[in-house]
């Protein structure tokens, strides 16, 4: 009896193994089928991206890249999936390399690595897969013909945000919440501080870093401290941490409709994040980093066979790669005129915006 049951269990296991094994085999043949398909219809150009640990719906950087890729896909009549466009999310930092490799093996013609955190992974994969084309955003990787680097002069748009904040602030106190300290976020901070100082050198910007890009609770805690100390406008360059800032500002506005609290969004137009009710919104404006535009343009270049491998493409105010979002009436006309003035001066080169704090 015992033996029979044991044998039964064993045979069951064996059967399971064969079934799963068979499935694996089938899948492989299918895959070779699809690759030959794409080879015959060689006109299509496929694009994919790997997110950093923020995920594709981070309301910021990754999402913006994905929107650019989707737009590119629509323009070219591509579909999501192999041979079209797709994304993979990274759950942890060790996933970067495997996700990049996975997409390259699925024969995507161009793969985006989103964010400077992927630097090492891109270097490693680029060496192993010389035929792949990779574009990294927010980081410069030199000397690799199959890697293009896309950079943004976010300090220029942050400067304009600083100008707007300094002119609009009633309390004369302004805050800045950073993600993790480093050259990228440093650019936002430097530009913002310089913009504030250009209008009113007496205003001191309250700067605090959350040491994270995802800890929304930390963001709320910092925002609470800043608002409590009389700050009325806070600019965040902190990815997911920023949603804590929006939560805090919205809660204050809900409790007291006259509360003078504002937030400045980052990367995308974050107006939707600041909606308190139908008529009230706490987002003053957003510092736009048009990753979507960049992603689309580089994909186009690559499609035309002009992939800028080994080069760094920098987007600034002049080519509308960075900008301020529509304030939808939150910023007064006079301020906007002033912002426009500064914008022209930056484009002309009469104002040089510092790239790092303390410059």
């Amino acid at each position, binding site marked *: 009896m*015992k033996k029979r049951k044991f044998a039964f269990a064993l045979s069951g296991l064996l059967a399971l193994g064969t079934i799963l094994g068979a499935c694996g085999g089938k899948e492989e043949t299918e895959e070779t089928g699809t690759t030959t398909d794409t080879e015959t219809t060689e006109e299509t150009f496929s694009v994919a991206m790997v997110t950093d640990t923020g995920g594709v719906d981070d309301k910021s950087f990754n999402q913006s890249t994905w929107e650019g890729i989707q737009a590119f896909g629509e323009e070219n009549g591509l579909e999501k999936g192999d041979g079209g466009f797709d994304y993979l999310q990274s759950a942890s*930092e060790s*996933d970067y390399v*495997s996700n990049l*490799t996975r997409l390259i093996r699925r024969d995507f013609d161009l793969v985006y690595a989103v964010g*400077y955190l992927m630097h090492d992974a891109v270097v490693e994969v680029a060496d192993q897969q010389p035929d792949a084309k990779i574009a990294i955003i927010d980081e410069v990787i030199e000397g690799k013909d199959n890697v293009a680097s896309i950079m943004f002069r976010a300090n220029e748009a942050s400067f304009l945000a600083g100008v707007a904040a300094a002119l609009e602030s009633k309390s004369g106190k302004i805050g800045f919440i950073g993600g993790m300290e480093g050259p990228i976020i440093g650019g936002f901070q430097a530009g913002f501080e310089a913009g504030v100082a250009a209008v009113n050198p007496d205003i001191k910007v309250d700067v605090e870093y959350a040491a994270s890009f*995802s800890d929304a609770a930390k963001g709320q805690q910092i925002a609470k401290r800043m608002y409590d100390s009389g700050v009325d406008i806070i600019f965040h360059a902190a990815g997911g941490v920023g949603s804590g800032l929006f939560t805090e500002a919205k809660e204050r506005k809900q409790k007291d409709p006259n509360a003078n609290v504002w937030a400045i969004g980052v990367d995308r137009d974050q107006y939707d994040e600041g909606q308190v009710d139908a008529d009230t919104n706490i987002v003053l404006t957003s510092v736009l980093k048009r990753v979507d535009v960049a992603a689309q343009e580089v994909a186009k270049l690559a499609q035309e066979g002009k992939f800028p491998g080994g080069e760094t493409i920098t987007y600034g105010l002049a080519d509308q790669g960075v900008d301020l979002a529509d304030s939808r009436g939150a910023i007064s006309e006079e301020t906007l005129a002033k912002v426009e003035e500064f914008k022209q001066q930056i484009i002309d080169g009469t104002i040089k915006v510092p790239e790092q704090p303390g410059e």
Partner: protein
Amino acid sequence: MSKRLVNILVPLISILLGLIIGAIVMAISGFSPVEGYVALWNGIFMDTYTMGETVRQITPYVFAGLAVAFAFRTGLFNIGVEGQLIMGWLAAAYVGFKFDLPTVIHLPLALIAAAVAGALWAFIPGLLKAKLQVHEVIVTIMMNYTALHVANSLIGTLSGGDERTPKVQETASLRSSFFESLTDYSRMHWGFVVALIAVLVMWFILEKTTRGYELKAVGFNKHASQYAGMNVNKNIILAMVISGAFAGLGGAMEALGTFENMSKLHGFTGIGFDGIAVALLGANQPFGVLLGAILFGSLKNGGLNMPSEAGVPTEIVNIVIALIIFFVASGYIIRVVLERFGKQRKEEK
């Protein structure tokens, strides 16, 4: 029903149950469970590359699991594996890039540095527990955060303001061109050998030495051990230190194998926390931990393939994997059911 049969059946049934419930979840959310599981399977075993990556993923889990299990056998709940792992990672990365030594000295030195760093980080909660009765759970949790931020700040200092430490020298790397050519450039490295040795070491300490017997005795009953003439405080500290050393070695796997350096972390790696689950899956036995880590690491690595191949979103993947682990961990329920079932049969006869 024989005990042996139950022991074999319980994990099998639990994995099967997990797979079934996971399939239901996928079906309800509108994804094909068959495609999903095929993608999971392919993500673990499809070719040499994925298999190499799976081994790579399993390796640090073995150490994290051993660390938690070892402390647990002495009655200590080491939640600080994460922090100890981070410190070990940093120490190994530092020794790895700083010194110029031949491999025979450099690699062991980097590993020892990692073990020592992890051990030191665990020594503090051990000492506080032994001398002042401060609960180790609280101290270790807090020291995770300390480790995270200390490491981030030190990376900045060591690398001269950069985001990451320089790459470790080739003489300290666990990677090998042999595995690269064998597994088509996966990041599989020699660390799994170190992990297997660590499993044996833990088994040896616990089962074959007097000290191990004492450690277990303290775990069973502190007061009885003291009455029997054992130095409880010393054993508590020792258990934490050894546990921390295992965790530190887990960090070395990341420093010398997976990444070959250390970048500023913008959050916990999660390996240390998953180590708790791995240890519990393995019933705190060294070889059980090994099996638990294999299950955990395989599912994690295979799960990555599910969004790519079957279009199942990451969130659903996490639910499915959590369900499988949940059912494996709740094997006790299945054991009870099986025993009932066996008893009834006997009575019928």
